[in-house]
């Protein structure tokens, strides 16, 4: 089943130089392990292909049911150098939430995930 990330998580993003960070937070504690399994560095890097020029680093915060992603080369130099509207990476949060996950039907039912058909 297809699960939209925007239906199972919320997020906030910010900047540090030319790096954007996106913190993704599971809406329910029991959904965090699914996020931790599916949202790999590779998966997120693929998602942002053509949007960022650098690599993706991931950190886990199970205490907050959250993952923190560093998206390098995301901000056209960052800070005052950047010509981008979103020079401070404020809306990379919802850009990440555009992702959809493929979750086995049985698991989606067990976790009570909101699904799309």
């Amino acid at each position, binding site marked *: 089943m297809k699960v939209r990330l925007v239906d199972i998580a919320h997020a906030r993003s910010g900047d540090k130089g030319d790096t954007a*960070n996106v913190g993704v937070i599971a809406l329910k504690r029991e959904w965090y392990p699914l996020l931790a399994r599916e949202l790999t560095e590779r998966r997120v890097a693929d998602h942002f292909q053509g949007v960022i020029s650098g690599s993706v680093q991931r950190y886990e915060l199970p205490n907050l049911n959250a993952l923190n992603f560093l998206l390098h080369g995301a901000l056209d130099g960052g800070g005052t150098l950047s010509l981008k509207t979103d020079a401070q990476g404020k809306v990379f949060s919802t850009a990440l939430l555009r992702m959809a996950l493929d979750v086995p039907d049985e698991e989606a039912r067990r976790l009570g995930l909101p699904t799309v058909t």
Partner: protein
Amino acid sequence: MKQVVRVAAGQGFWGDWLEAPRRQVEGGPIDYLMLDYLAEVTMSILQKQKERDPRMGYARDFVGAIESVLPAITERGVRVIANAGGVNPGACAESIRDLAASHGAAGRVRIGVVTGDDLLPRLDDLIARGHTLANMDTGEPLSRVRDRVLSANAYIGSTPIVEALRRDAQVVVTGRSTDTALTMAPLRFEFGWAADDWNRLAAGIVAGHIIECGAQCSGGNCLLDWRDIPDLANVGYPVVNAHPDGTFEISKHPGTGGRISVPTITEQLVYEMGDPHSYITPDVVADFTTIQLEDAGPDRVRVFGIGGRPPTDKLKVSIAYRAGFKAVGTLVYAWPDALEKARLADRVLRERLARLGLTFDKMLTEFLGASATHGPLAEASGDLPEVQLRFGVRGEDRRAVERFTREIAPLVLNGPPSVTGFAGGRPKVEEIVAYWPALIDKTEVRTAVEVIA
């Protein structure tokens, strides 16, 4: 010893809500008002102001903020801690002293001034003695841009603020203190936390991180359930209610809008986060993977379990340098085929710039309404009602950037049709002041505290 100390956040950056400091002082009981004014490039703006007028170089909004809370803070004994001093904390303190005098409180407001963060006068000496101040992102030595440096300030920690409080300052003015030290220092002072009480110091830092962006932890910019966050027009700014053991609750004043919940606090905790295991400050390294949050009633969240460890032997240095020029021009194209028209305008503009022989370090085209913020991830579809073409250039040559600004308006008559939204006139050329993060040995930075009244 007090069992609870209340630190209220009244500004999250220079430009934040002017009403917030007064609302924090008058809306309920607090012990400290914390005002954070400094972003990464603010110091360079202030340095430019100081060059023009040696009495300037601090956040002028701070004077208005203090005026809005006088005499309430003197009557209630609320103490104020702010990094409003910028590159001229002494002048900032004097303007507060004069303000107090003009409100009939001459000599009754003790003002602590923290200095020592400003490394600009010592920069050549430091470089000569082998401190490369290499850029933390690129590794390049500062010598590469030395002649373009505008300001250089070490991020300093809580110790001098604690000292100012010990010497009975009611208002403490600092330069480039870390944002989080402004909250942690009064807790360390009130509870007598030792300089190596890593867990409690880390708790103070986490409290600081949660409230340093003002309402961004109390319903502002909150994505989750944003439609249902009550009364944002009347949003309450956060208050830390801290205890001697390092636990604390985040709350806001009764009768205010916004929301404080585990999700709103979590969103703020991950904001601008790097490696959560190592949130490095001059005082302590806090481990954000230890933070526990718990609902503690309406608009109240309890925070506990925080772990910390000793800091490094370095301080971060915020250096600002001149890095060329930029300009951004915009035009709006309307239905039908708005995006196609904007795309054609972009091609025409680029061709004209090329024929003029203008070269830039960077040209960037964005189509607002279609793909500006999410790029190829966006699914702009259908015939959009309007699209804004946003075209930016940056480069070392001011004349080239200037010439570019003359190429936007002509497109209104000699480019694609259905174009509007150019009333703002020619784009402005802006000098870029860029940020150069570096490290310096802690032993090189000596802070000082002076108290005036």
